[in-house]
């Protein structure tokens, strides 16, 4: 008993405080139900809401006009950035701008992509890379795909350079590092609509704003990967460089950066993938391209065409991902002495040859340079009809209707109404109690402060609706995802397949997750939750499988030798050991859900995302920022609680 009490001593007060907070919250809620709670305790009264939006607006106007930042940004937008975008636009889809050479024939791009794929990863990658572009051309989406690509090829290199530069600065200088860290974590939880509006206001509507939003969105992971890579360079390599008499610049250029090559290239991969995801989303500020087309097609419920565009986006994403990952793992090959230069650079030469060959062919035969609307193989209408016929089939329709009905009437709406019925202070207390129980006092206080700010903005109800979508989707995703993950972890084969599927699914730009949801459940609350659910399930499954697979084999063997059954092994050994990793997956699932719930505003929601989307139409920067920060603060609260909890569990397990 004595031992027990000393062990429990540090935990007990925390648990007791948490329980007390819960009791207080329940009491408040019950009082409210009984109609005894004064109105000012259920919601923050209108009169007390500080005018955050006008304040922020004023601050922005000051920065924009009085400090003259707008002049600079407009100059960038109309000068170098516009120039770069025009150039790629001309080359890729023939916009009438300098250098007036384009458009490059589709066959030349497809051919070169195939050669690049071969050089990086053999026939399979060649087929994937070439095939993607052939598909895009044949399906008649070449021009819109190139509109998207023309922004991507400008934004990704810029994001890379900026990320690398800031990453190096943060690594070299502690003060920069400390200044950058909190900004990065806010940027990573800020909903993308909040990237878009400032971009539009500072950099004018169109591709430039799209490119800027994309760059800002893609830079943080590049910074993180760069610092991580530079910090990991082995001390012997560093000392070898110093003893070779490197100056500081030589150290960076010849020792640190090459030695951190892998992490930096992983950063490049992430930059490319995030850029693609964001470029597609810039459709919301009227950027033409695949995203805009998809938005239009989904808006008019043309499922067939949406489906085709979705495939194009997914193919592009997978191709870019696989190509850049192949580049990460590629190791330089050594050539014996005296190898002629054309043999050393054979892929470059073949690629050039293919490019020139197809370009010339394109001049002679039109089909190789451009595929007209009428020649395209698009079967949008037919697919549309087929999908609609399938969905209208008696059994299918009854199943989807049933799901929709049960979800809406029995689960989603009651849950939402319940959350809305909790008075604001009680809600905050409940969250703080959870934070206290799972994490620690510091986190609990921060979480309460964050939620308090959300309450003070006056957007509480919408914030709660946002939370409701996130929570219900993540709970449903766990109910479906965790059994799948456990099942998959039983054998290597299954685990590898599921992990590959998750990896692939994770490369899809978030936007395409809307397609199956809308296809099956139309424009309803169910499809909102469904699209979030699919998106959030990916990291959940992935980390659970990894956590379960990574349990040290000697522990499994020890359990087996102790005569544990499969179930005992799972419950007593694997799951407890995998818990910290699973918590990371859970955290990511929630972050993904916060991201997706904003996109789902497109389907029609009543939450913060919807309001955010509305601000895009005007120039209501203050309101946009307030809403964005609300989402960010809630996401940050969850993030803090779960990462602290995972760290504590990890430390307790000695991992």
């Amino acid at each position, binding site marked *: 008993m004595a031992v027990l009490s000393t062990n429990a001593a540090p935990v007990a007060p925390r648990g007791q405080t948490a329980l007390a907070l819960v009791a207080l919250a329940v009491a408040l809620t019950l009082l409210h139900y009984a109609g005894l709670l004064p109105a000012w305790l259920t919601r923050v009264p209108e009169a007390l809401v500080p005018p955050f939006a006008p304040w922020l607006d004023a601050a922005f106007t000051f920065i924009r006009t009085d400090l003259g930042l707008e002049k600079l940004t407009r100059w960038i937008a109309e000068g170098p950035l516009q120039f770069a975008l025009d150039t790629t636009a001309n080359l890729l889809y023939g916009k009438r701008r300098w250098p007036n050479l384009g458009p490059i024939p589709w066959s030349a791009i497809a051919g070169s992509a195939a050669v690049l794929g071969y050089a990086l990863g053999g026939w399979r990658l060649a087929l994937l890379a070439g095939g993607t572009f052939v598909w895009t051309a044949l399906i008649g989406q070449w021009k819109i795909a190139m509109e998207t690509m023309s922004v991507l090829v400008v934004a990704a290199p810029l994001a890379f350079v900026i990320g690398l530069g800031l990453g190096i600065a943060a690594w070299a200088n502690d003060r920069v590092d400390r200044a950058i860290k909190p900004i990065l974590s806010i940027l990573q939880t800020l909903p993308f609509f909040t990237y878009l509006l400032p971009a539009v206001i500072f950099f004018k509507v169109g591709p430039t704003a799209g490119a800027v939003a994309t760059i800002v969105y893609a830079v943080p992971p590049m910074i993180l990967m760069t610092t991580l890579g530079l910090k990991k360079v082995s001390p012997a*390599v560093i000392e*070898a460089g*110093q003893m070779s008499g490197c100056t500081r610049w030589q150290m960076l250029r010849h020792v640190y950066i090459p030695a951190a090559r892998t992490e930096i290239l992983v950063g490049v991969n992430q930059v490319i993938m995030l850029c693609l995801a964001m470029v597609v989303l810039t459709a919301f500020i009227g950027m033409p391209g695949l995203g805009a087309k998809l938005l239009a097609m989904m808006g008019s419920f043309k499922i067939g065409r949406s489906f085709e565009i979705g495939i194009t986006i997914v193919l592009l994403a997978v191709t870019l991902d696989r190509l850049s990952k192949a580049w990460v793992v590629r*190791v330089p090959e050594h050539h014996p002495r005296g190898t002629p230069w054309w043999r050393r650079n054979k892929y470059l030469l073949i690629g050039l040859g293919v490019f020139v060959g197809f370009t010339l062919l394109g001049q002679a035969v039109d089909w190789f340079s451009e595929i007209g609307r009428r020649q395209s193989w698009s079967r949008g209408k037919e697919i549309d009809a087929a999908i609609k016929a399938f969905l209208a089939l008696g059994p299918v329709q009854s199943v989807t209707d049933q799901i929709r009905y049960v979800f809406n009437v029995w689960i989603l709406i009651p849950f939402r109404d319940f959350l809305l019925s909790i008075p604001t202070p009680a809600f905050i207390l409940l969250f703080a109690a959870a934070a206290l129980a799972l994490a620690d006092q510091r986190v609990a206080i921060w979480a309460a402060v964050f939620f308090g700010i959300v309450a003070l903005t006056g957007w509480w109800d919408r914030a709660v609706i946002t939370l409701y979508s996130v929570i219900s989707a993540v709970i449903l995703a766990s109910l479906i995802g965790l059994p799948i993950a456990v099942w998959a972890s039983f054998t290597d084969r299954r685990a590898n397949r599921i992990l590959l599927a998750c990896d692939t699914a994770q490369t899809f730009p978030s936007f395409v997750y809307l397609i199956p949801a809308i296809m099956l459940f139309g424009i309803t609350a169910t499809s909102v939750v469904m699209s979030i659910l699919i998106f959030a399930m990916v990291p959940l499954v992935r980390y659970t499988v990894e956590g379960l697979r990574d349990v040290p084999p000697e522990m499994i063997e020890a359990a087996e030798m102790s005569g544990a059954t499969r179930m005992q092994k799972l419950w007593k050994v694997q799951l407890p050991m995998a818990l910290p990793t699973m918590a990371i997956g859970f955290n990511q699932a929630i972050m993904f859900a916060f991201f997706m719930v904003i996109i789902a505003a497109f389907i029609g929601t009543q939450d913060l995302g919807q309001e955010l989307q509305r601000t895009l139409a005007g120039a209501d920067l203050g309101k946009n920022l307030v809403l964005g920060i609300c989402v960010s603060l809630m996401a940050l609260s969850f993030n803090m609680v779960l990462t602290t909890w995972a760290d504590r569990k990890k430390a307790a397990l000695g991992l």
Partner: protein
Amino acid sequence: MMSQAPVIACKNVWKLFGKDPEGYYARMPEGHGYDQIRADGYIAGVKDVSISVGRGEMLVIMGLSGSGKSTLVRCFSRLHDITGGTIEVEGQDIMSLSEKDLITLRRNKMGMVFQSFGLLPHRTVLDNVAFPLEMRGQDRHTRRDRAMEVIRLVGLEGREDYFPRELSGGQQQRVGIARSLAIEPDIWFLDEPFSALDPLIRREMQDEFLRLQAMLGKTIVFITHDFDEALRLADRIAIMKDGAVEQCDTPDQIVLNPATEYVRKFTEDIDKSRVVHASVLARADAHGEGAPVPARATIHDLAATLVSDQRDMIPVADGDRPLGALSRQEALRVLVGA
């Protein structure tokens, strides 16, 4: 050997690790021990070390892991800035050097070999070896020629276009050695260069190293935790414990007259007769009769003579020059390890 001014001379060198080493060093009471310093939250990497290395000498620093030997060597090359004391390299106080002068010193005078090789993974063997020359700004052609020369020297010819990952551990360390020799350094630091290698390869590399040293005659500071290796290679051995040098002397003296209990324990299991030379036991004031034994022979070499010979005092001579005589009793005691 030690006739000229020392190449490296360090006096009362301290290297402390912790929050504010300089401040702590300034207010640290005299005679504070390792454990007391540790209790104050600081680690004494190097504790009050005074040692010097003569031109052409091979000084082996040895000790267990964590004894501060690597730290001391990193102070010599100023990879670590020292907290107190002075280090002079060829008469120059290296702590007073500007960054530029330090780089010049490293580019022209120092070479270093690392335990974990420290090869740049993205460069071929040739480019790794040529790296210090490239940093020095030598043109492509000259540096390639020189690099090829050292690559041949370490026996890696034909592998110059390989990448480090394609080589075995022993070959990788040859690259490390070649790189450290590329600039023709006067001072050569080797930080446990063979510890990461298999015993057989280690032996081979030691022979290789002795061959190189016989050819090049550099001033060498060699770190090891392997006493046999130290005895095989060293002119002098410095034994370190808790950041301090317990004893710095020739191998013979270390086994014959250990300065501290720690050193005695260290040398306990060593076959002394293989280390101690006749010259060391020879007393100049004594003289014996008959044929002398060679000064450079170890007692082990002389075992047969010592056992069968009837003389009490046996004369010792270095070539033709008589050094005196050794007492047979004393030599026999060394032989049986008493």
